[in-house]
């Protein structure tokens, strides 16, 4: 019974969202606000269950002596919320600085060691050989250089540079065209999932329950 109620609640909410395709209406706005509320409630649940309890609260309460250092992330985490108290909002900067700094630092390593080096290396180290034909490799090298020149704005795009830059635009257009085709595929897939729910799953589950 709980499954039957659930599946009809899900169907009703799906139709509320779809009603926006006709025009804006209170059903859609209800579902939209519920969407935001439930999503934030979901965050609370997963953060509490999966991170805060096992990685912070349990170790602190289980063996405080060995895990007292976890008071540091606890205080830094709680301190983030001082931004909602105007008089001491500046305190949150300390936690924000620590949080942003770590992720910006790791991002720098990822970008240089994990993207620039292997991507440049893969372009220039094996111009002949590898899995691609030499012609394809040459096209790839020319394409990468042309796109980079298009994005290089410190010199005027005229003459030879302008021609190469134009070639870069054509490569980008081929890439964007492919990305558009894939984006259509992705968006349609999401709809297929919902329609499958409304016309197949809903009917099947209702039939099984009745």
């Amino acid at each position: 019974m709980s499954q039957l109620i659930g599946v009809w609640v899900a169907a009703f909410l799906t139709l509320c969202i779809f009603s926006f395709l006709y025009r804006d209406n209170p059903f859609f706005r209800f579902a939209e606000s519920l969407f935001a509320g439930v999503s934030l409630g979901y965050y609370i649940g997963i953060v509490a269950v999966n991170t805060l309890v096992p990685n912070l609260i349990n170790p602190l309460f289980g063996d405080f002596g060995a895990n007292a250092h976890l008071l540091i992330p606890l205080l830094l985490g709680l301190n983030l919320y001082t931004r909602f108290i105007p008089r001491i909002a500046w305190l949150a900067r300390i936690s924000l600085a620590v949080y942003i700094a770590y992720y910006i630092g790791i991002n720098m390593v990822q970008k240089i060691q994990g993207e620039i080096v292997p991507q440049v290396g893969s372009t220039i180290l094996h111009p002949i050989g590898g899995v691609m034909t030499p012609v394809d490799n040459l096209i790839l090298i020319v394409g990468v250089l042309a796109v980079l020149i298009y994005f290089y704005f410190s010199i005027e795009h005229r003459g030879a540079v302008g021609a190469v830059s134009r070639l870069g635009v054509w490569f980008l257009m081929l890439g964007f065209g492919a990305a558009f085709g894939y984006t259509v595929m992705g968006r349609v897939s999401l709809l297929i999932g919902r329609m499958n729910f409304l016309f197949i799953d809903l009917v099947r589950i209702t039939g099984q329950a009745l």
Partner: protein
Amino acid sequence: MFWKLRLPLALTFIVGLVPIVTFFLSTQAPVIGPAVQFARDRVERYMVIIAGFALLLGVVSVVQGSVRKIERRRPGWPFAASLLAGLVVMGAFGILSAMRVGPFQGLLTAPDGGMTPFFWMTRNLFNPLQAAMFSLLAFYIASAAFRAFRVRNVEATILLIAAFIVMAGRTPLGEYAFGWLPGGERWLPAVTDWIMTVPNAAAQRGVIIGAALGAASLSLRVILGIERSYLGTTEK
């Protein structure tokens, strides 16, 4: 000044260097190895926890905004009430699941094999709302493509041709298009594969390298304290 600016900037510099320095220095190195390992492990474990707190920052903002809207009876306040109701019920189920109270034993399956209340709401409210909201994009992309996708110049023509080849080549349409010719069923899929692995990869690689250079330099500006907008200040 020290607490509001210099300390955050100093912390940014020190913590920002941890993933960079520990990347270069081996934990096996004499003398400094254990210190490197200690700093890396502690900071990474702390960041998992702090990220949890950070994820919930948005909850407070939304609750504040919604409560204000309801208190002042602003237009659309009943929708703010439904937002809060969803948040409070789902959030409460989540917290009770974390505390393992009564039937709230974890997020997914209860000990009796049934669904926990949190999972019931996930499956029947959270999942369909998320999925339905994003599935609207299928309608919008079709409508936008019909209205705005025009062949006006060489660039738009290249884009359209590539898009058509990929849209056909990544479905059985591509196999049927020239399927009446001997071997023709492989033509369009093969051209699609070529577009994806050669010109598309070249374009994507150019964008990746360019964006990575930009992101790395921005990271450096933040670590060195030149870029401070994330602290909500441009003070020198």
